[in-house]
């Protein structure tokens, strides 16, 4: 019985797929595999919506090279193995005209092997890991391009602000995964450059939510700054347990997760004074940013995250390079992407010869009375940080 039903669905799908293929000559088709389900679903869906809005906006302004633009998107369930197969499908079966990147560093790392093999340009808007782009000469990649700032830059703002205010000692903690490790290493580097002393560094496994042992050690060292390379769940648990154990540094910041509205909703007053880093905020004065925020909210019924904005901007960057090249030819689009300098709703784009992002800036914010207030870098900051962070019982 189930097999029959399954057969019917399969047949229906075959008709649908065939129908799509028949009208494929017209538009420029851009393929992408995205994490619509699985571990990264929440973030991958936002990126998908960024692509969709870009598709709509491009078509509203006459499309690309006089043709309409159409995205072909599959779900990779947040796994690299599936994404690899799907890019192979997009390129060799669906014969898409171009591709855009998937969500997350690990998935991009695996997929880039396929896009390189077929010499397809891939703008990868949500891969923040340096090692995807900076590779030894025998493993060099030619067609993959970075949009967001590298992981190493996430904690730069926190350390820089603290250094300017005379703080001396830093404790760095991080989750033990590709991105968080790089973010922590970046923080250590910057702190050392600024002449600060890294008094503590420790990694905890993915999914860890009990920080009692780690925080007891931190407390005994009493550092001026605690810099944590986190995702969402660990950022919340860490903050809560810092209060319980009364670990009270003069500045405390997290990376991913601290920028989500849920962070404040969960922690309430305990989130006050916490610093966070983000690739993008809707209040930043980039051209068209305000309009993007409004249009996105209207289209999808919720606010965009930086994943949405990066997806949207990455798609526009690819489109701009195609426009300038006047063709979809990979080598000529690559040439344009290498010399392109562009300012989008997401900020600046410019890459070096490895396709590595060098222009985009991250911002650091602080939770102040329930709002994310951008406090770094100075030229983009509408307000000053509330410094130093008072002891827990005075917040």
């Amino acid at each position, binding site marked *: *019985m*189930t*097999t029959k039903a*399954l057969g019917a*669905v*399969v047949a229906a*799908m*075959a008709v*649908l*797929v065939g129908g799509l293929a028949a009208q494929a000559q017209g538009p420029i088709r851009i393929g992408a595999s995205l994490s*619509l*389900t699985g*571990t990264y679903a929440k973030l991958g869906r936002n990126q998908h919506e960024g692509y969709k809005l870009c598709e709509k906006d491009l078509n509203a302004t006459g499309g690309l090279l006089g043709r309409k633009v159409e995205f072909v998107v*599959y*779900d990779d*369930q947040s*796994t*690299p*193995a599936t994404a*690899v*197969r*799907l890019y*192979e*499908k997009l*390129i*060799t*079966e669906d014969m898409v005209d171009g591709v855009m990147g998937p969500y997350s560093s*690990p998935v991009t*790392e*695996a997929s880039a*092997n396929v896009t*390189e*093999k*077929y010499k397809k340009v891939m703008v990868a808007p949500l891969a923040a890991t340096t*090692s995807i782009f900076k590779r030894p000469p*025998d*493993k060099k990649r030619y067609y993959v391009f970075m949009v967001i700032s590298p992981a190493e830059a996430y904690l730069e703002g926190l350390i820089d602000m603290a250094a300017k205010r005379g703080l001396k000692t830093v404790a760095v903690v991080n*989750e*033990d*995964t*590709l991105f*968080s*490790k790089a973010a922590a290493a970046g923080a250590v580097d910057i702190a050392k450059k600024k002449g600060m002393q890294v008094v503590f560094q420790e*990694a905890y*496994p*993915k999914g860890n939510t009990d920080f009692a042992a780690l925080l007891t050690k931190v407390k005994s060292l009493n550092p001026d700054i605690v810099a944590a390379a986190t995702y969402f769940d660990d950022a919340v648990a860490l903050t809560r347990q810092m209060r319980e154990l009364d670990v009270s540094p003069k500045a405390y910041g997290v990376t991913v997760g601290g920028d989500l509205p849920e962070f404040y909703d969960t922690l309430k007053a305990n989130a006050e004074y916490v610093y966070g880093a983000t690739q993008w905020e809707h209040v930043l004065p980039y051209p068209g940013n305000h309009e993007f925020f409004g249009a996105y909210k209207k289209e999808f019924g919720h606010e965009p995250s930086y994943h949405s904005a990066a997806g949207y901007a990455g798609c526009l960057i690819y489109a701009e390079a195609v426009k300038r090249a006047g063709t979809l030819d990979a080598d000529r689009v690559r040439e344009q992407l290498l010399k392109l300098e562009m300012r989008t709703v997401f900020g600046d784009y410019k890459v070096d010869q490895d396709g590595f992002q060098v222009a985009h800036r991250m911002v650091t914010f602080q939770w102040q009375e329930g709002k994310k207030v951008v406090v770094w870098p100075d030229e983009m900051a509408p307000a000053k940080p509330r410094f130093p962070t008072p002891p827990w019982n005075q917040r």
Partner: protein
Amino acid sequence: MIRRGAALAALAAVVAGLAAYPGYASGYGVRATLQIFMWIVLAGSWNLISGLTGYVSFGHVAFFGAGAYTGAILVAKVGWPWLPAALAGGVAAVLLALVIGYPCLRLKGPYFAIALLGLNEVLRALVSYFEGLTGGGNGLSLPTLDATIPIYYAMGASAASVTLLTYVIITSRFGLRLMTIREDEVAAEAMGIDTARHKLYAFLLSAAGPGIVGALTARDQGYIEPISVFPLATTITMIVMVLLGGKGTVWGPVLGAVVLFVAQEVVWARYPYVHPLLFGAIIVAVVLLMPRGVLGLLQSRYRLPRTI
């Protein structure tokens, strides 16, 4: 005999077709078929221990991951070619099975299932810990190499080997003893079967395949990380494939792997939000409506041979 001859001829035609397939297929066709082969090996291997002896392994992906890391380290750090590295992956998985299986399979009951579930988590933690060798949470990136077609043949050969091995076991005295253990372990012991030793042999055989295809997959993808090669979901998928096709049969795992994989490619990639629901529905439907799988159902209805 004529029916048997026709079946063999059909089988030969399928094998010949698959062997010639990379000559005219697209890159995607080759890679998708390669992954079907991988699932046939995983499902077939799980069937060897759990389908035949009834000892359910909830951690079979541990052998896949162990093979993947062994192969990847040998290729990336020692510079081995991928084929011997894949065989080494199989050897590593068998050694691991020996270490875990020897104590666990001497016990009866659910201890084995629980131990295997733990094994997978322990391995993942170990791989994350020994950063110098494995890259830890950063994962391990292999040198670029386009060997999809040779790996396709290696995967195909593995799938054929596992299926052939299953056939040989099921038609042998060894297989009969395993099935006796499944039906009634106390009775098997009373009949003089050394149950611990038989279970261990079946378990060792079931670890080799996942180890080999783990290493092949690592080579083909060029990048592995702890989360991507030790997911519990992979074990669950291989179990569902075997249950769907028919556990304890030769062709059940093959059938289950092909049907589930194709369904996933055709339907689920297009409807991402409903596919977890569909997956769950299939599990429930199989367990309720045909607990012995498609082949089990056919066997009881049409008096097909036990060795199908």
